[in-house]
């Protein structure tokens, strides 16, 4: 039987993710890279890398869906679908009982109310950096740490501090003040994580928190934030093995659904140009 493959590209503000799945919904390849200014060149590069990983040529990909903030800059995508829709589909793939998904990415935080893989309601916090990955990057930077260090350090806390500022800039100043007061680093970081978690908990409260609750996005790799989120939501929080890939997985799976639906109806499948062009902003 001829295998058919589907690709999902999630071009986020901080990270670009590509996933290739086959018709059995098995992941054949996945690539994650930092998004830079040249979205279109990067989309090209990561897709090439994923194809090499999967041992496929671009012609063998039946459908390509682009999602994320940069989705319109993927010239070879067959379709663009909003990230929330892709995300809902992606989380359902691994966690069919998920009812609430919380995604904290580089520049925004989102809450998705889901049922059977369909998005019922959503809420977004995208007006400022507070409560996002960018916030953690700034804090790590001001403490001379990397983002990857924050979680494990914060777990050592025995007396977390309260960070009162809701603004990233002022929170950073507050952290510096606390350091100079001699407050242990782990307590400060636990307070920072709690600030993010409480903000997110307030945001999703409107969606009514009910299990299963899933946490995705780059910030989900921070075990300190995961812990704080559990405490603030008052329930267990699941985290996928690779929390960055939900959107790309969902995009690929939606591509599969679109393709199979069209084939079943005998309808044509509208595709983009089938070549990876080297496109830059300066052309």
């Amino acid at each position, binding site marked *: 039987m001829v295998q058919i493959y589907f690709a999902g590209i999630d071009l986020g503000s901080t990270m670009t993710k590509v996933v290739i799945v086959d018709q059995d919904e098995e992941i054949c390849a996945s690539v994650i890279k930092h998004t830079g200014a040249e979205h279109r060149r990067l989309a090209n590069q990561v897709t090439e890398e994923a194809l090499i990983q999967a041992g496929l040529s671009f012609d063998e990909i039946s459908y390509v869906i682009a999602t994320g*903030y940069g989705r319109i800059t993927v010239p070879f995508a067959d379709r663009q*679908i*909003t990230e*929330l*829709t892709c995300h809902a589909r992606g989380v359902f793939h691994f966690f069919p009982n998920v009812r609430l998904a919380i995604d904290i990415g580089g520049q925004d935080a989102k809450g998705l109310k889901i049922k059977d893989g*369909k*998005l*019922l*309601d*959503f809420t*977004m916090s*995208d*007006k400022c950096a507070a409560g996002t990955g960018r916030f953690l990057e700034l804090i790590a930077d001001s403490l001379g740490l990397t983002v990857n260090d924050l979680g494990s350090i914060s777990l050592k806390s025995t007396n977390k501090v309260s960070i009162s500022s809701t603004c990233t800039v002022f929170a950073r100043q507050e952290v510096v003040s606390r350091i100079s007061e001699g407050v242990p680093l782990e307590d400060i970081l636990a307070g920072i994580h709690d600030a993010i978690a409480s903000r997110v908990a307030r945001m999703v409260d*409107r969606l009514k928190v009910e299990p299963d609750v899933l946490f995705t996005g780059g910030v989900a790799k921070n075990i300190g934030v995961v812990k704080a989120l559990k405490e603030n939501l008052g329930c267990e929080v699941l985290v996928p093995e690779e929390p960055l890939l939900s959107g790309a997985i969902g995009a690929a799976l939606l591509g599969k659904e679109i393709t199979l639906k069209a084939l079943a109806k005998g309808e044509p499948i509208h595709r983009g140009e089938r070549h990876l062009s080297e496109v830059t902003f300066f052309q």
Partner: protein
Amino acid sequence: MIELLKLCGFEEQEMESELPRVEKAFTKLGITDEDIERGKQRLAKYYDIELKGVRKVFRLIVRELVAALLVRDEGKKKVIYGFMAPGIDMLGSAVVTKSKEAFVIHHCWAFHIVVGCIFGKMVPILEAAEKKWLKEGVVAHCANVKTLVGPITLGLFPKPDLLVTSGFMCETSPKTLDLLHELYDIPVWYIDTCQDREFREYPEPTRRIASLTAKSLKRLAERIQEVVGFEITDNMLREVQDAKGKLGDALRRLKDLVESSDPLPLSPTHDNIWMCLSTLTLSIDGIAEATEAINTLYEELRERVAKGLGVVEKGAPRVLAILPAGQTDPRLEHLACEVGIAIVAIDGSLAAPFKETSEDPYMKFGLESQQRSMSFPLRRRIPLIIEGCKKLNIDGVLDRFHVGCRSVVADALIIEEAIKKELGIPVLLLEWENFDPRVYNHEQYKSRFEVFKAMMTKKSS
């Protein structure tokens, strides 16, 4: 300028008399050649300006603003302003019908449309008000009062002989007029009524409240009579009400056509234009002209509907919007169309038939104003919205709630919950400021609209 005026429905034969007036008025506003070009582009982009009916309506609005700006230059001896003052349009229309020496402006509507929607120059006006005492920020002072204070502080509108507001719609408004009185010695007046009902009356309209409204309006009429020097009779008001009734019927017929058609034949950017038209203090002849413009548009839209033409594709998700469209900025409604969402109606146009009316024009006003959607207490408004959604086959509800308005902001979550519970359709809550174009964030709103559309499309499939 001539091209712009043609886009706004001015005829060739009236250019000789109107062009100098418009140029003089626009010079007062600081409108430059660059603004004119931008105005032409915005008219073409955001409005269905190829329809003669739309152009005729713009003509009325532009002429009204020009008249307001040149009011003293053109020899009007008595000038009255109404701001957030229900009933002033009725009294004002009676006044301007009777006398060429008096002028009544209602609520800066024409200013919002021309300066904001057409030229996109509302921000300097708001900043002028913020330099005085009104705070910046979406949840600080409502930009509506800034659109009154700004032009006055900039000297765009001459000092009126009377400035009228109401106390029952908003407390920021009477306090603002208080301050304008202190700072600029402008005579002010408040009309008032009581929106609360005793528990046994709640939530239906009551004669008790209507008579309070009527008394307050009568006192306002007496005050206006002192200013203008002639009596405003009941017959004058009845004639205005009849004329406005015909305009209302014409607008209702137009809205019914738009609401029932697929694809949506007219952009929802025009929703605030109808609101403006309904509340301009036109003379009876002017109201008749407005009615004719709407009837012309109705026929044009019937043709569009017959040809299957629309501003979004056929089968686009049908949306009911809660609260009026942006008064100074058409971009949000335009974005909805670009994304492929059909905003077919606003809740303000959902009307239950008037259960009670009166021969006395003041009581008639007092009774009928209680029976308009936005005047309803929440417990009456929610069923009306839900019935409207069912009747119009609505796929989703957009609540662009004005966060600086205490009258409406509290309702948003309750309305959302009720709609989801009763109808199970998606509701998009958008934090919004109806009068401040600075809140518009294209990417944020586009993201939300796209997801909203996807949710409605999935639900219907």
